[in-house]
């Protein structure tokens, strides 16, 4: 879970690094970085299979009856039609075989048909995923910039007023219920003050920019439709800020402690003793080492952002994965739920992979583990 799972990751990584430092390997074979990457990718693939298994098992625990949900009343009365439908969808086979069929479908890009929209789940997701990526991506960028900046300020001004204020503010940031904050900002800034645009991704009456990436800001800029671009940015700003508040709080706290920890190290003292300017020490000595824990938290933060999208998208009527997940979960639209689980799980895996690779790039000791 959120801020709390972080020490665990650190405590797990710590013993590994020790053993790595003890036995530096040299000589033949691919470079340590390549081996490190290959191993990480393989682990990720294994987890991906695990994710398909979990979504499959979860959706099979659901007490709903897919036959009743898909066939009309008259067809249900005819055992021949029911049997044929079951055979068509592989439901007459034992569960392990059903899972293999499901896996085969997934590999071929077939995620089934949504019972809600009666469209292929893949098509639904192709529309929803870019909307969520645009929202969550903007939010994580805001959080990284603001969180790292605030954390560095708090660490440099330790125990002074600004540190205390930032500590309280970051605690408030991780304590606000996102759904309530979304509702409140929407009420105040849109309904009362009318300074932010309303719900959705662009102003009503405006048509979406030609599809290239699915990110409205990028697509409209590519097409040179600057009025659409302005509208898209305006619509993106408030939900992204609401979504980012929690992760800003999280990153501020961890950046502060990471920076403080590094500043106490001997090599930083040595750098200071030899008279290097404060800025060089901060960026080249302190921040570089502090980045490892910060990136861990940022990876985890992205996960909590994806969680937050469910709540924020509901309020801002943002047509993303969060809303799609919510709709399909509450109507027990199983193929859609499985699709969402797969996509979100895959995004998560990619994020974790990026975090791992960044580790390897920033901290050479990690590659050897």
């Amino acid at each position: 879970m959120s801020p709390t799972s972080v020490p665990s990751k650190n405590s797990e990584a710590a013993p590994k690094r020790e053993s790595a430092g003890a036995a530096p390997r040299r000589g033949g074979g691919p470079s340590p970085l390549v081996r490190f990457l290959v191993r990480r990718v393989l682990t990720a693939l294994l987890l991906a299979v695990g994710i398909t298994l979990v979504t499959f098992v979860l959706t099979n625990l659901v007490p709903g009856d897919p036959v009743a949900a898909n066939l009309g009343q008259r067809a249900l009365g005819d055992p021949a039609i029911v049997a044929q439908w079951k055979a068509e969808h592989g439901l007459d086979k034992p569960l392990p075989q059903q899972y293999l069929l499901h896996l085969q479908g997934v590999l071929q890009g077939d995620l089934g048909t949504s019972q809600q929209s009666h469209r292929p789940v893949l098509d639904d997701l192709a529309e929803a995923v870019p909307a969520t990526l645009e929202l969550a991506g903007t939010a994580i960028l805001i959080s990284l910039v603001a969180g790292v900046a605030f954390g560095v300020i708090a660490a440099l001004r330790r125990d002074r007023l600004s540190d205390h204020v930032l500590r309280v503010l970051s605690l408030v940031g991780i304590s606000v219920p996102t759904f309530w904050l979304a509702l409140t900002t929407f009420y105040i800034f849109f309904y009362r003050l009318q300074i932010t645009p309303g719900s959705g991704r662009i102003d009503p009456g405006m048509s979406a920019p030609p599809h290239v990436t699915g990110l409205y800001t990028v697509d409209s800029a590519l097409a040179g439709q600057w009025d659409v671009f302005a509208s898209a940015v305006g619509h993106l700003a408030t939900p992204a800020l609401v979504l980012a508040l929690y992760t800003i709080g999280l990153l501020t706290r961890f950046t502060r402690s990471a920076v403080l920890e590094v500043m106490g190290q001997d090599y930083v003292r040595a750098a200071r003793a030899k008279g290097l300017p404060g800025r060089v020490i901060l960026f080249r000595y302190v921040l570089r080492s502090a980045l490892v824990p910060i990136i861990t938290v940022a990876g985890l933060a992205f996960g909590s952002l994806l969680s937050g999208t469910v709540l924020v998208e509901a309020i801002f009527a943002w047509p993303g994965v969060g809303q799609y997940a919510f709709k399909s979960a509450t109507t027990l639209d199983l193929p859609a739920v499985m699709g969402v689980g797969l996509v979100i799980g895959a995004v998560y895996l990619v994020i974790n992979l990026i975090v791992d690779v960044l580790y390897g790039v920033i901290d050479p000791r990690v590659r050897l583990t």
Partner: protein
Amino acid sequence: MKLPQAWRQPLAIVGGVVAVAWLVIAVAAPLLAPHDPLAQDLPRLAPPGPGHWFGTDQLGRDILSRVMYGARLSIPLTLLLVALSVLVGGLLGACAGYFGKWADETIMRFADLVFAFPTVILAMVVAAALGASLANAVLAVLVVAWPAYARVTRGLVLGVREREFVISGRLLGFSAWRSLRVDVLPNITGPILVLATLDIGTALLLLSGLSFLGLGAKPPSPEWGAMVASGVEVFDSWWVATFPGLAILTVVLAFNFLGDTLRDALDPRTARAIKERAL
């Protein structure tokens, strides 16, 4: 009674006072609440004013009374939820760390799988699959909450397992269970306690979030998340959603203040700094 140095700072005191206040409200809600939380006998959607300080909702119920009664639902359930997560996660993590090998692999890969999903989405699917009720929402949050404890406990147990006093206990013939309980457990409770305190807030946010989505408490029960959701329907009556939201915020903030202080007090590095400052 004198408070220990670490607790004599504004954040801890504010957090403690607010948390205690909420506990009192939860216990004494029937005495404190001015109205029946379910009675629909007030004017509908009346703004805050004398007689109903937090206003009334679309069914003519007193929001102040509902917020007070809500504490009786949210706070005990959240505490229960965290206790269960500590128990399940701690036990599994301790087994993984203590026994190692296949137990470690199985348990931790399972934890990894749960970590591979964003919490709200997994909890939402579980809650939807089990059927919407507050008990199922607790179960759903438990499913996503235990791995954090499993990871931390495993790491801590790994650190203690090879220490002399644990090994000598085993050599004296302690069973694995006794060794875990007598030698290992007392040495790892501190960090887990910090984690649990910091987690109370997260758990409440998640639980009320599920209720907000309609996957937890059912009407008419005065659960805070569900109350915020009902405020979405009557958008211009701001008080319907605002006060239950503030209730969640203050409870979570209080426990986060406490957890933050607890961590500073128990972390040897910061504890030393606090002592030095006190001298």
